[in-house]
């Protein structure tokens, strides 16, 4: 059902020409692609990140339960607001797509309201795809239990691959 909703967004999506790039190039295989209303790119129309480039934006930790796993998990990763600032995002919504084709729209407002984390590691180790890696947008489920319910629950996209800023 989520992917069906995402189809709607696909329809409304409109490509916006990329601007010039001041962003460092990734050295390894990119794991995240950001397009849309951004001011900094490192490839035509897009900003590409590999794991080291992403983690260079500053690591933080978030310990929380998740609605899908048992017990508390120790996530580390970057503040998504730092990521948006890095690419000079100008938009109110993030259209996020996962490796499995799942798409969801996340209001940028969520990032202001909750102390969220774009997780790259769990227990200090990079997360494989089969364990929802390499990137998982984590909501603070323990400290903000309401985020375990819809609409937030669906926005906690795992296997995150790309973001379109609108």
């Amino acid at each position: 059902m989520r992917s069906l909703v995402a189809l709607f967004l696909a329809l409304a999506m409109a490509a916006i020409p990329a601007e010039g790039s001041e962003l460092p190039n990734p050295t390894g295989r990119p794991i995240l692609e950001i397009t849309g209303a951004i001011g900094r790119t490192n490839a035509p129309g897009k900003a590409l990140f590999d794991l080291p480039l992403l983690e260079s934006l500053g690591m933080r930790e978030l310990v929380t339960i998740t609605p899908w796993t048992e017990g508390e998990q120790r996530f580390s990763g970057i503040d998504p607001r730092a990521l948006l600032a890095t690419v000079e995002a100008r938009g109110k919504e993030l259209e996020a797509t996962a490796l499995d084709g799942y798409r969801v729209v996340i209001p940028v407002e969520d990032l202001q309201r909750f102390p969220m984390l774009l997780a790259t590691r769990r227990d200090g180790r990079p997360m494989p795809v089969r364990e929802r890696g390499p990137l998982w947008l984590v909501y603070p489920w323990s400290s903000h239990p309401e985020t375990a319910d819809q609409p937030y629950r669906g926005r906690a996209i795992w296997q995150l691959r790309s973001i379109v800023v609108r």
Partner: protein
Amino acid sequence: MERRRLGLVLLAALCFAAALLAQVGLLREHRAFDLEETLRSGWFASRTEAHLLRFASTLERFAARGEPDRESFHEQVDVLLLAVRRLVREPDGARVMAEPVLAELALEVERRLFDLEPALLFLEPGDEAAYLAVRDRLDEIRRPLAELVARAYDRFLEAAAASGRLTSTLARDLWIGLGLTGASGLLLAGLVVSAVGEARRARSRADRATSAAREAEESLRTLVDALPVAVTAFDERGRLLFVNRHAAELAGIGGDAAVAGAASAGGLPAALSAGAGRDEHGFREVDLDRPGGRRHLLATTRRVLRDDGSLARTVHIALDVTERRAAEEQLRHLAEHDPLTGLANRTRFTRALAAALTRPGSRVALHLLDLDRFKEVNDSLGHPAGDRLLLAVAGRLAGAAGKSALIARLGGDEFALLQPDPANAEDARRFATRLSESLAQPVVTSDGRLRVGASIGIALAPDHGRTVEELLRHADIALYRAKEEARGSVVLFSNELAAARARRHQLATALETALRQEALELRFQPVLRIEDLRVVACEALLRWPACREPTGISAGELVAVAEETGLVAPLTEWVLNAACRRGRLWLESGRACPVAVNISMTPAVADRLESMVDNALASAGLPAHLLELEVTEGVLIRNFDQATALLGRLRKRGIKVALDDFGTGYSALAYLQRFPLDKLKIDRRFVGELGNGPTSLAIVDAVVRLGHALDLEIVAEGVERDEQLQLLRSVGCDLAQGFLLGVPETADRISRRLGETHAHGPLRNSAPLVVGPAPAPA
């Protein structure tokens, strides 16, 4: 073009989602949370299946052209692993797969996928053989997953049925919801059709266009394949354009081959290919016989989609409603059948009877059947034995009745049969006799050989009634009479029976009134010692007062009515009190004479007999040895141990116990030995025959010897002729009563006679031997 298609996809997707939401919403409205859960599990599983289908196409592209690259392909392997693992191991999946069978299937899928993982990771693009091997194993994984999806939807239907909420309202709502699903399926299918067409056109264009169109087609096909409905599409000439996985499975054909467009509608079963026609129609139910012999019920609909150029494509949608229909049938069956025997229940039977009665000119026979000794089996061997017996009886009846009759269990040990078109009353009677005979042989179960018999009452339509109520009532009257007669009786209703029954009812009312108003009275019949013709006891007999007596009522009838109406206990109490008071009066006036009271040993009486007797003796001040209780052989049959204990306790008080009407009932001679008795009363039928031949004398002689051997006094009832008295004397019978010796008389007259007897000895100047039309003694 891409935009337009996406717009349509959106529309279809929204319709589909709306339909699902509508269903879930409706279910929530019915507070059927379980249903929602089971529906979710189906949805969850089918999404995983869609993942697998998408992966299969990724695998093909990677193996053939190395697209996507190795790392992306490996990512997709992981994506699939996570999707499957969620089914098995995560709270979301664990909850929806709570059903053990589903969980087992999910585990199987996961296990096979893990086994396949190394082969996937080592797969090199261009290695055709390795690809084919991997693809086959992936297909193997699809099988349990597809079954999981199917079963999850089955569970939904089962849960719907089991929750008892598959009411007509919910069923209707579900239909609406599914109708919407079907409609969006139609849209999706139309899109696939146009995507296919586009892909063909694109072939003549550049390669990248081809691959874009192919990808679009693939994802649409994946979507439509995941729908739990059969979708087929035909072009304007009836050629098959498209068949989704579900439809291909139903038709027993390979889905891929069909898409090639070469197949014609002729290769499909009519239920799936009626779409070759031009007109649209709403949902219809169509049978589909699959090669395996299983019949499926499809709900089908058809839409005609027109291109701009007005080339018409027909899309045919079929929902497999076999399981749902089976669930509904099951519910109906439960509502209309007896769960133990599987026979029709009262609801279904009366419905069928009503239907039969409305057919003009129809004749039917209604047979009501009651088992004769079911209660004994149930009481002595327990309910499971009773249930086994009922099952055996149901089988016997079905065998005897034949296919055309409807057999129902109305409840307890009561069965009803509807015999269609009996030739005449005799035909109906033969039918009933067949039923009765089928139960004559003992039923052999694990509990041993059980003897049951059945009494059957018959009513015919239209002769005995034209409505269900009338027929049932009349058959019941006939059954009632059958039970009064010998075991295994068959009685056909008649107006005389109805009149007798009506009279019974009238009597019951009159009796109740009389008892309440204390308007009954006792008559006393003397019992004489044959040796010296002295009165040794008086039997108290209940009578209506002469002035109030309904016409022609017999004492037997009075007791029967009392037993029927539940008045027997208060009546017994009244008789005991009145008899004891009379005995006390005789004692006070120096004419002491034991008074005998007939006890009808129904459970209601047996429960209270001791206290009733004690109260009567105490309040009258009568010594116990001046009271006699007369019981019939029925006591021995019904509950020997209980009756033995009860009468034993009464005898300890000094009360005498006589066995009445000996020889008419079961004649369980062996029981006599163990039964606490003082007297044995030989039934009037044997006494009446005395003098008519040697046989009856031999019987009476035997009974007297037997009784004496058991230390019992023998009483001959119904002595009417002097010759009989002489014969009784000759075989050593102790006591006698009957019209010859004294009719039942009012208390005053018998009191006078007792005085005379004491003063003057036996039978001299006594009352006339036969007094008018006096009722017979009980």
